[in-house]
Each structure stands twice: as C-alpha cells, then as structure tokens.
C-alpha cells in the first residue's frame, strides 16, 4: 500500500470532492440560526427561535415519538425474520441458496418508487379488512418499513455468519446439540455484534425512510421525515434546518463513538 501514494493532483481532486460532500451539511447550520420566518441567511443577529419551535410545537415531538415507535417495531420484525432466514441458509446450505437470497434482496434492488406503489397497494388492500394495520396507520408503516429494511439486515447477517468458524458448529452437532441449541447457544452468540448492527441499521433506515412513507401515509401517521417533507415542499420552513442540524450532530456523534469503539477493540 505504501508504494503508490496519491500525488498533488489526486490530493487536490480528492479534497475538492470531500468538500463537495460536506458542503450541504455545513450550509444548514447558518440557515437554522436565521431570525427570519423564511429560509434565508442570517444578516447580523442570530436566533434560536427555530430550535425553540422544535420543542414548543407539539407536531415535531409527536412525529419524533411516532418515528421512534415505528423504527423499533419494524427493526424488531426485520431483524427476527432476517435472523431466522440467514441461520437457515448458513446451517442447512439448501440448494438454490443464491436464488433464495436474491429473492429476499428484491426490495433493495427494485426502484424505491415501485416498492412504494407496491406497498401502497398492500396497505390499501389491508385497509378494507382492518384499518389498524392498513393505509395511514402506524402499524402499516412499520410493516412496510420492515419489507424495505429486511434485505439490508439479511446482507449484514450473512456477512457476519460467513466469518463464523464452521468447526464450532460441527463440534456442537457432534456432541448432540439440537438445531435449536446450535442456533441459540453456538451461532447467535458468535454473531451478536452483527445482529446488533443489523437491528441498528434497520432502525436507522426506518427512522429516515421517506420515499415509501410518502405513498402510504396521509394525515394520521406523520413520521419525522414526512413532517420535514411537508416543511420543505411549499414554503420552506426554517425549522427543517434546525431539525437537520440536530440530526447531523447526532449522526456525527454516533459515527465518532463507533469509530472510537472499533479502534479500542483493536
């Protein structure tokens, strides 16, 4: 790796791209501090009024709580389903494994707008039977989000399973462990970090999901991204800038913590 380092041209170009990547995230900060009611750059004085809106306007808090609830439920569903599936693939190595995995990854590959229309069809059909998990209900959104996030959980779990030493499973089998015991006492403890990551990723993907959510909600199930969307579409509400800054800071904090954690682990 040391033989061929980037020269000055590569360094300049790479830095420009890095700046391009960070620029819109930084631009949100001054806009969030504007004292004006409209989207604008603050001229002179700064104000925290848009941050105050986040706390004082009940709609923001409600949507945050709703997104948390949907994120937790959908992450649970998709992690459990992805776990049993990946364990099945790893332990039994069925014929047509590649085909089965490919099938399961469909929602990740199909254009999001097609998935959105498909899930709109699903939830409106369910609505005619039960309103509680149909169109514009929080359970319906959680169901749709699990469809969208399950492929990502499967990919992560298959990757962490591929690093498990098959001999420990063989040993357990030789000692007479049942399938259930092999799964719960031998394999799962060995992939717990991957399992945690899969649950976290499913949660984050649901937390920020907007493409599908736009199609399957109207007035009741207003998640945080949906509320941000409403604040962006017509007259841009600078409160969106304030919530964006909060989300960016949270992301940076989590990534830094993760970075420190993995470095201290080795």
């Amino acid at each position, binding site marked *: 790796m040391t033989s061929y380092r980037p020269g000055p041209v590569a360094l300049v170009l790479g830095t420009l791209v*890095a700046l391009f990547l960070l620029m819109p995230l930084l631009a949100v900060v001054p806009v969030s501090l504007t004292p004006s009611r409209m989207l604008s750059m603050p001229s002179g004085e700064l104000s925290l009024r848009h941050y105050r809106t986040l706390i004082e306007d009940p709609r923001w808090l409600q949507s945050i709580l709703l997104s948390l609830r949907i994120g937790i439920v959908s992450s649970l569903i998709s992690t459990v389903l992805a776990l049993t599936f990946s364990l099945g693939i790893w332990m039994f190595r069925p014929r047509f494994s590649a085909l089965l995995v490919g099938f399961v990854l469909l929602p990740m590959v199909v254009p999001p707008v097609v998935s959105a229309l498909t899930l709109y069809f699903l939830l409106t059909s369910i609505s005619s039977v039960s309103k509680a998990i149909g169109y514009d209900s929080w359970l319906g959104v959680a169901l749709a989000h699990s469809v969208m996030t399950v492929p990502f959980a499967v990919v992560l779990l298959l990757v962490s399973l591929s690093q498990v030493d098959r001999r420990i499973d063989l040993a357990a089998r030789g000692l007479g462990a049942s399938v259930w015991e092999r799964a719960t006492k031998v394999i799962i403890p060995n992939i717990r970090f991957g399992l945690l990551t899969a649950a976290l990723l499913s949660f984050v993907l649901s937390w920020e999901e907007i493409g599908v959510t736009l199609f399957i909600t109207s007035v009741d199930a207003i998640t945080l991204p949906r509320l941000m*969307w409403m604040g962006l579409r017509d007259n841009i509400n600078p409160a969106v800038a304030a919530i964006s800054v909060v989300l960016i800071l949270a992301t940076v904090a989590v990534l830094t913590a993760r970075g420190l954690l993995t470095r201290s682990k080795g």
Partner: protein
Amino acid sequence: MQTLSNRTGAALFLAPLLLFLSLAYVVPFLGVAGWSVTLPEPGIGQYSVLLSDPLVQSVFIRTFRICAIVTLASVTCAYAIAFLWVRGTPLQRRITEFCILVPFWISVLTRAFGWVALLSNRGLINTWLQSLGFISEPLALVRNEFGVIVGMTHFLIPFAVFPLASAMRNLDERVLLAARGLGASRTRIFWTVFVPMTMSGIIGAALIVFVFALGFFVTPAILGGGRSVMVAELVYVRLFQSPDWGLAAAISVVLVLIVGALMALLFRTLKPAQMV
C-alpha cells in the same frame, strides 16, 4: 427438534421471511402489474400510451439524460475520493472516510435540504455572490435540472465509492511496483495500469449508480421544484395528483424491467463478490 430432518429444519428457518415477502411484496406487486392492464379498461392501452404520449416520453428521456450525467459525475468524483481513501496516508484515509460516511448515514431529505440552503435564491451562494457584488440578481441554481443533478450526484457518490474502493484494494500491488521499476511516471502508472485494473469496479459503480438514479424520487422532487419531473415523480403525480393508476402501474412495470435488464448485465460483467 433433534429428530427433525434437514429438509424440514431448513424449511422452518427459511419459510417465515420467504412467506412474509411473498405476501407483503410479490403478491401486491402482481396486483400493481394487474392495474397496468385493467385500469381504466382491460388491455394494453397504458403501454401504448407509454410509447406514444409525448409528455411521458419527454419524462423518460429527461430521466435517462439526468441519470447518464449523474452517473458520469458521481463515478468520477467517487474515483477521486476513493483513491485518497485507499491509497492515502493513514491521516488522509481517516479524514476521507469521515467525509464519505457522514453524508452516507444522513437522510436523503436532510441532504437535499442542504442543497436548497446552498443554492436557493436566498441561500448561501447567492447571498455571498450578491454581497460581494458579482451578481445583482440571484442565479437560478435550484428548481431546475442543474439543482437535481447536483443533489443526486451528491447523494450517489458514497454508493459509487464502495465498489471502487474494493476494486482498488484488490489490485495486485506487484504490478504497480513493476510499472514503477520499469520507470513509468506517476501519471503514466495511473492511466495505463491503475485505471484499467480497476475497470470492473468502475463498471460496477456506474451500473449501481444508474440503477439507483433511475428510481429517484425525493431529491428531484425537492430540488427540481416540480419543473424537472423524473419518472418516479411522474408515478407519484399519477397516483395522487392527477390520478391515472393504470399509467402509474405501467410505468412501474417498465422500470422493473429496465432495472432487471441492467442487473443481469451487472452480474454478467462482474463476479457478484466484487460488487461490495
């Protein structure tokens, strides 16, 4: 449990997710495909509209044009930053990794909004240019195709970085050493050895970006301001604003077919293991 045969065991583990996705994804998709040939009346009328309606056609052409430009731009940018990420000094690597991962984890909505904050009439760039006296009227940087292209390129760069970086990591170090030993300059090594040897990553990245860009909805809707409509937004409009469910469904079916063809191409060009 102990007496389970392998076959029933496998079925028990695999069935829940397979059933879940069949019922919650495949069946409803078939329903959507059904709409495309039954609404408003049975037949393939919607598909002939797709082929003949000038509005629908202009949206498809615009979509392909934007996707092509975005693919070129984001793969080029991604190559530059991936090079620094893989080949740089440890400090350079840490900094570029931060710059790639932070935007990657931030939602598409926040990122599109960041571009609105930068590019809109009262945004950062126009305010600065005006206060410095370079321009008297704000430049139209957003609510047009330019804004859409910038926003989509920004969103897709990280997705292009991963396959490129993996191709660059898997490259045989000895070839570079040999090129150097034979007296090739840095630039010459880059263009005649490095780029050709990472070609599989370039093709993979380009296909992934193109496929993602094709179904893009949020960024064009926010940065295009309804003026630069792409296929995905047309589906939304035809579902909720000027309803024509059959057409929305037909467009979806066509999109799936295009993406399926591109994915087949991707798997033919690359061994899947090289993708991620």
